[in-house]
Structure formats: C-alpha cells, structure tokens
C-alpha cells in the first residue's frame, strides 16, 4: 500500500514539477526518461527472459531511421512513422531472435550474435547513400508542428517521453503477472526445466523479443524527433545498446522500476561529472563502467534487489 502511495506521489511530481524547472534540468529529466524507457524496453528481454542482448541499438536505429525517412521522403507524420518503425524493428527482432533461438544460442553467444546484427546494420547504414551514409539525416524545419512530432519548446517532448516511460512500466507490470511473464521467468531460471514443464520457450522468447524491440524502436523515433539529427554511430552504435542494459542492470534487471531507478542515478551522475570536469571527454562513461563493476560486485541484483532485500530483513 505504502509503495503505491509513493509511486503515485512520484508520478504526480514528475507531471506537475517540470514546467517550473530551469531548461538545463528539464533536459536532464528528458534524458533520464529516455534512458529509463530504453532500459525498460531492454528489461523485458534481458531482465525477464534472461536473454542479454548487446545489440538493442539495431531496433533503436531502425525506429529512428524508419520514421525519419518516411517523413523526409513521403511526408508521413513521425507519429505514424514511429509505429512503422516499431513494427519493422519487431520483424527484425523476430528474424534475429528466431535464428538465434532456433539454433540454441544461449548466454554470451546470444549477446555476441545480437552485437553482430547491430553492427551489421550500422555498417550498412554507413555505406548506403539513400539513408545519408555516415553523414546521417537532418530533420529540417523546426517550427512547431505537433501533428508532425515537432514542438516549440522542450516541455512537450518531456511529456511525450514521460508518457512513453510510464506506458513501458505499465506494460512491464502487466507482463509480470501474465502467463508470458511467468513463462519468461521460468525460462530465465532454467530453460531446460521450463521446456520439460511444457513451456514453449522458443515462442515465449520470441514474444519477449518482439515486444522489447518494438518498444526500443519507438525510443529511436523519439530521439530523432527530439534531436532532429541521426547518424549511424549515434543510433546503431554499441553505445546505445550499452545505455539500455546499463540502466536496467544498475537499477535491477527483472524488476518493474529498476530501469527508471537506474536512469535516475546514472544520468545525473554523468551530467555532474561532465560539468565538474569540463572539456574532459570520457569521464562520464568511465564512471558508468565503474558503477557497473561495483553494482555487479556488491549489488548483483541492482539497486532494486538491494531495496527488496533490506525490506525483507
């Protein structure tokens, strides 16, 4: 009960407070929500199904490129392009997932093959003139056009990504209590035992893959609209894949709130370190690495795992 009060209070603050925040803090909050959202999307496959993807940049990039290209060539509103990107990403996810799962890739082998798929898409994007090759794509004309997913200030973008993050958390919560959710947990804990108990592990993992890649692609479209510029390294590069899994693992993989908690810790930390050591590129990512090592060494179930253990004790 207390948890629900805290949660509604937190959501209330996140909805009411931002208009009064200075622009710098609003930008940080948008980053927190975007990374929390990406973490939540990754969490469905990585945290619940236990399939550690190192290549979610593939879906992020597909989302960003699909909506942007549809807008630039056909004038299709990115709101619809977003769905198209999501569907395309889910199809690609099903393809990559079917190949990997069908041939029994597990653990680190699955991680490596997903990394390879994302890198292949990056190389293709770099070498394809039609998608702007390594120069990337710019979304011109930044005058306010809400129907085309372009807003005048940053505040509307904040509310979009807040809604997306809350939706992702709601989906995760629903998933946790569904047949799919229970099957995924069984697969994560012991796939052979789950199979023996009659769980269709291939089908369940593919469903998790489709959902996770679909949601990740929507994040890609948001990124493209918010920054109005995408290129192969930004969208398909390994850094994107790492961002998603980092939030989830630090916050607690396989928990509903973990990814968002992770983002609330990691993003401000990286901003602070960047502000403290101006002009020194790399400090923030170095801290990410350090936090990752420390979390795995001392809080192997992330911050949420730690909270849960303390509550039980």
């Amino acid at each position, binding site marked *: 009960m207390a948890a629900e009060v805290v949660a509604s209070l937190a959501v209330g603050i996140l909805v009411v407070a931002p208009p009064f925040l200075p622009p710098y803090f609003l930008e940080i909050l948008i980053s927190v929500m975007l990374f929390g959202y990406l973490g939540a999307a990754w969490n469905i496959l990585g945290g619940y199904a*236990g399939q*550690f993807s190192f290549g979610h940049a593939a879906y992020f990039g597909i989302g960003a490129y699909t909506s942007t290209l549809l807008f630039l060539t056909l004038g299709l509103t990115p709101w619809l392009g977003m769905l198209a990107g999501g569907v395309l990403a889910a199809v690609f996810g099903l393809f990559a997932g079917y*190949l*990997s799962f069908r*041939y*029994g*890739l*597990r*653990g*680190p*082998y699955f*991680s*490596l*093959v997903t*990394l*390879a*798929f994302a*890198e*292949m898409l990056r*190389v*293709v994007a*770099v*070498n394809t003139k039609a998608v702007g090759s390594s120069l990337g794509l710019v979304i011109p004309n930044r005058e306010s056009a809400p129907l085309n997913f372009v807003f005048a200030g940053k505040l509307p973008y904040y509310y979009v990504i807040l809604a997306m993050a809350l939706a992702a958390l709601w989906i995760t919560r629903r998933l946790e209590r569904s047949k799919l959710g229970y099957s995924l947990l069984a697969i994560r804990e012991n796939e052979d035992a789950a199979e023996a108990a009659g769980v269709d592990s291939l089908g369940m993992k593919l469903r998790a893959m489709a959902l996770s890649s679909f949601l990740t692609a929507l994040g890609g479209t948001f990124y493209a609209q918010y920054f109005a510029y995408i290129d192969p390294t930004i969208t398909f590069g*390994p850094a994107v894949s*790492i961002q998603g*899994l980092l939030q989830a*693992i630090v916050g607690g993989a396989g928990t509903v709130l973990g990814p968002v908690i992770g983002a609330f810790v990691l993003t401000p930390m990286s901003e602070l370190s960047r502000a403290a*050591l101006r002009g*020194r*590129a*790399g*400090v923030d*990512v*170095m801290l*990410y*690495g*350090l*936090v*990752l*090592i420390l979390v*795995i*060494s001392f809080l*192997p179930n992330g911050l949420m795992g730690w909270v849960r253990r303390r509550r039980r004790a």
Partner: protein
Amino acid sequence: MTADLLLQAVVSGLLLGGVYGLVASGLSLIFGVLRIINFAHGAVMMLAMYTTYWLFTLLKVDPYLSILVTGPAFFVLGMIIQRLVIEPNRFAAEHNQLMLTLGLALVLENLALVLWQGDFRTVRPPYASASFMLGEALVEVPRLVACGGAVVMALALFAFLRLTDVGKAIRALAEEPEGAMLMGIDVRRIRAVAFGVGSGCVAVAGALVTPFFYVAPDVGESFNIMAFVVVVLGGMGNFVGALLSGFIVGLAESLGATLLPGSLKQLVVFALFVLVLLFRPAGLVGGGRGR
C-alpha cells in the same frame, strides 16, 4: 578486378590475420580457463599500444624492443585485474560476469580518453615504410614482422601450455575444473596466471602492430570484435583453432575490402561471425565448447 589486386589482398589479409590469431589466442585462453568472454581484451591491447607509444616518444625505445617491457608488465596487470575484479565474482551469474568485463572495457577505454584525448597518435620508427615486392604484391616489412612475431608468440604460448607445469595446470583447469582442483592444483593462482598470460599475449600483439597502425582510445574495439569472430570460428578455448582462424578472418576481411566498396568489408566479417555462431558454434576446426 585484376589478379594483382587479389594477390595483394591475400598477402595483406594473411599478414594481419597472424596478429588476429595472437589476440584471439589470448582471448581463447582466458575463456578456456575462466569461462568468461572478456570484453576488456581489446582495451588491454589499447593500453599496451599506448605504452609502446610513450616508450617510443619519450624514451626512444624501439617498439619491438618495448615488448620486453609491455609483455611482462601486462602479464602482471592482467593478474592484478583478475584478482581485484574478476576473482571476487567467480560465482556470479554468467551474464553478470560478461557485464563485469564490459564495465572494465568502459573504464579502461575512457581512462585513456581522459588521460590522452581522442587524437590519433602514431609510432613511426625509421623502418616503418620499408617494403619489398613478392611477385606482384607489395609486402610491408612492419606487417611481416608483426605477423611473424605474432606466430612465434602464439607458438611459444602453445609450448608453454604443453611443456611447463603451469601450462599443464592451465590446460587441466580448462578441461576439468573439479578434477584439477582435486589433483591439488592451486586453482585460484592458475586462473590469475591464465588471465595474465592472455593479457600479456594481447599486449605483445599491440606492440607489434603499433609501427603500422594508429593509437587511440578505441583502437582495441575493432581488434576485440575481430578476436570474438576468430575465437568462435576456431572453437572457444581451442588455441590452434584460434591461430588458424585468425588467418581465415584476416583473409576474409581483406578480400571483402578489395571486392566491396566503402567500409562494407566489415559486413563480410560480421556475416561470417553470425553464420559460424549459428551453424558451427563449436568452431570450424571443432573441439571447442559450443553454446
């Protein structure tokens, strides 16, 4: 496409392939004993390349001579990293151990970025541009030396694993961890030694390539990914397979670069990687532990 160009591609590919083989041997050794895929392997190589660079720039130490320093130094550094970071998490879940080496890679790579910025640096000793013609193909001497040095080092590694007590203990541990422990092998020490030897190997590879490569914080990444491909192709934990498939991957990359436009050459390597992972996860040569 002329025959000359193809011949050139074959020569360059094979020469770099030797280096891939050495990088992958180190990775394979670490996997064989510790059962982890070391994402920080390329970052260790990068640090060794910076060491070579600074020794050359500040103290005028020849890159090849500096191997006498970098090899042992990174052997020790590898042991320290293993003791401090990896050993305490020996019983952690497999994916968490993977994350651990990913964290290590992020720390090391960005430490280099913080310390030395992202500029490309080069080490160019007087012989850097020496070359000769082999039939119609140009052979650059530093690349030939790198390949030769890498093969010698890899052979030395095989000899070490076959002939010395420590080497035999490493192989025993890779094959049958519990049996090795029951036979009185100091498992803790051997794990550290294996990580140290793997790191030493990749450090030597780093020193060998500096005379014809560049040095930058992310230079290890491409070698790391290449080493993943090589190790999977050769069979995880199979050292001879690693050396052989190093040549195959080097050749595939180089032929891809000649036959395909732009940077699509990487596509060939990744495609090869995915195909091998899917269809021959125990490696082309066999004997590795798949899946």
